[in-house]
């Protein structure tokens, strides 16, 4: 796999005027990016995850040639985003805010025709491509050929926005929170398409989202960005493995007896979460929970307890996100 996006030591500061009284204001410097490095290969979806203000949209804007970085380098499809912005623009498809970015008095198809002209598609290619995309995104069933954009739902706008990003069949896609505010069916359709675009058509996709569930479903690799820096990266599984202390044995037992004494005899860290209807809900922390799992279960059974449920819990991507963005859980 070759790299479609290469980012090296990319930094960006914003100077924002903040009013401190009726007549006075001062300029505040916000470090949006503090020298980030990453690559995105053809044929993969890379998720850019981070809290609000982490630098996700700034990164997307720089790669889309909509913002100049202060320092560092970024290459898209082999072209420098500053020196060869024109070449980069020929090779990217972008999807920014879903609810805006179209002309309200045009139909969905007419909007696509307009942007196809901006991308330099000739009449025949434009028609073929728009027909294909309207079918692909099932916009024909939703009336994109005759409904004015101002009558579109958010889900339809999102599909249309993705269709626009795909108009020029660009090899690199930059998608900024493409499912934000969408209903579950529309969000699912977009996720499926994004995965297919990368895995079947070999496109490189940089995908920002807040949604951990979505990131896990869509992304092959994830970059956790926080305060303008890459806090962690890897596949969703690799990221989870990086916080092993979050792996716990969750066990629910029924019966009478000194639960704490049994657990202390096992020499493990534990917490008793709740006690209802003589059912104790216990969480046992261990570096390698599978090593002590059998001992724990055996000991409780031997002490006359009934095991209601017992399992090893993996940390969720949300745990990973919070761990790396806030430093703890």
């Amino acid at each position, binding site marked *: 796999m070759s790299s479609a996006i290469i980012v090296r030591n990319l930094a960006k500061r914003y100077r924002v005027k903040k009013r401190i009284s009726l007549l006075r204001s001062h300029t505040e410097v916000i470090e949006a990016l503090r020298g980030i490095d990453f690559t995105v290969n053809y044929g993969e979806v890379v998720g850019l995850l981070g809290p609000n203000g982490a630098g996700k949209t700034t990164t997307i804007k720089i790669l889309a040639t909509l913002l100049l970085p202060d320092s560092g380098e970024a290459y898209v499809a082999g072209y420098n985003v500053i020196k060869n912005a024109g070449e980069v623009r020929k090779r990217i498809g972008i999807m*920014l805010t879903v609810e805006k970015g179209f002309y309200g008095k045009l139909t969905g198809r007419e909007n696509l025709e307009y942007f196809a002209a901006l991308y330099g598609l000739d009449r025949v290619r434009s028609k073929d491509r728009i027909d294909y995309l309207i079918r692909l995104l099932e916009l024909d069933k939703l009336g994109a050929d005759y409904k004015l954009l101002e009558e579109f739902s958010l889900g339809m706008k999102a599909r249309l926005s993705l269709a*626009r990003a795909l108009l020029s069949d660009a090899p690199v896609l930059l998608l900024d929170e493409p499912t934000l505010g969408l209903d579950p069916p529309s969000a699912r359709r977009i996720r499926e398409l994004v995965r297919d675009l990368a895995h079947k058509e070999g496109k490189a996709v940089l995908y920002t989202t807040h949604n951990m569930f979505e990131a896990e479903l869509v992304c092959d690799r994830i970059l956790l960005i926080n305060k303008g820096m890459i806090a962690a990266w890897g596949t969703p599984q690799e990221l989870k493995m990086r916080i092993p202390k979050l792996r716990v044995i969750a066990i629910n037992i029924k019966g009478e007896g000194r639960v704490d004494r049994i657990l202390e005899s096992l020499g493990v860290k534990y917490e008793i979460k709740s006690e209802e209807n003589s059912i104790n809900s216990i969480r046992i922390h261990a570096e390698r929970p599978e090593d002590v799992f059998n001992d724990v279960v055996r000991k409780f059974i031997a002490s006359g307890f009934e095991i209601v449920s017992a399992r090893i819990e993996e940390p969720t991507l949300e745990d990973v996100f919070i761990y790396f963005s806030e430093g703890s859980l």
Partner: protein
Amino acid sequence: MNIPNLIEAEFKLVYGEIFRRRSALVSMIIYPYLFAGFTLFFGYTIGSPGLFMERVGVEPVVFMITASNMVMSIINTVDDVLWRPLHDAYVGTLPYIIASPINKLELFIIIPVPRLLLLLITGFTSIVPIYVLHYGLNGVVLALTVISLTTFGALTMSTLGIIIAGLVHTVGESWRILNVVRPLLMILVGAYFPRALMPFAAYITSMFIPSSHVVESIHRILLGDIGDVYLLLALAATLALVYAPGGSRSLLYWEKKKVSEGVKTS
């Protein structure tokens, strides 16, 4: 770049906006009458048709309906160029336009064409009936001449409009500046207020506005004096061409400024 395709797309965009918004269509038809009526009302309250004829040399109703049509066509061309970046920023299409590989100068030259054609068609609902009433059937030929020259005059304004747009939109709240620039252009173009009657400073300034020469040539035709008309038209075309490289640089400057600040995406 596929220019015919882009022109077609712009036509669809503008006609979609106008024909699907009936109020916009109706206002396009009645505005020349409204403007003419308004100026005639003011004119009659402070003077007489006789005095107007004596000073300007053209019958006031003919002069004002012609002026209204010219101003609408010329100012709309400039308006399309001047306001389009603001409109695109408002509806959120600006980042997609900037991030597209299109040549921005080509786009901005094409932008006013569809609305201009539509405005020229409204010449048939405004100028033609008044000219026919005034000049008889000869009025049709005269009206067609005026409409054609107005088209030319409007097109010569696009490069100056692009220069202004590129510079104005690099500052914050540019719409405030546009609200000053627009009426100034309306006056200096000389449609309502003939250039010959302008104060010296305004007269000199108007010389740098390409369409003001076309407007003057139309006035001369209405006066029956066509001696220098070709010279005036050549001057307008020359000025438009002279401004073209400036327009290109101005757009480039605007784009660079936007990108250095960061194009708003939400």
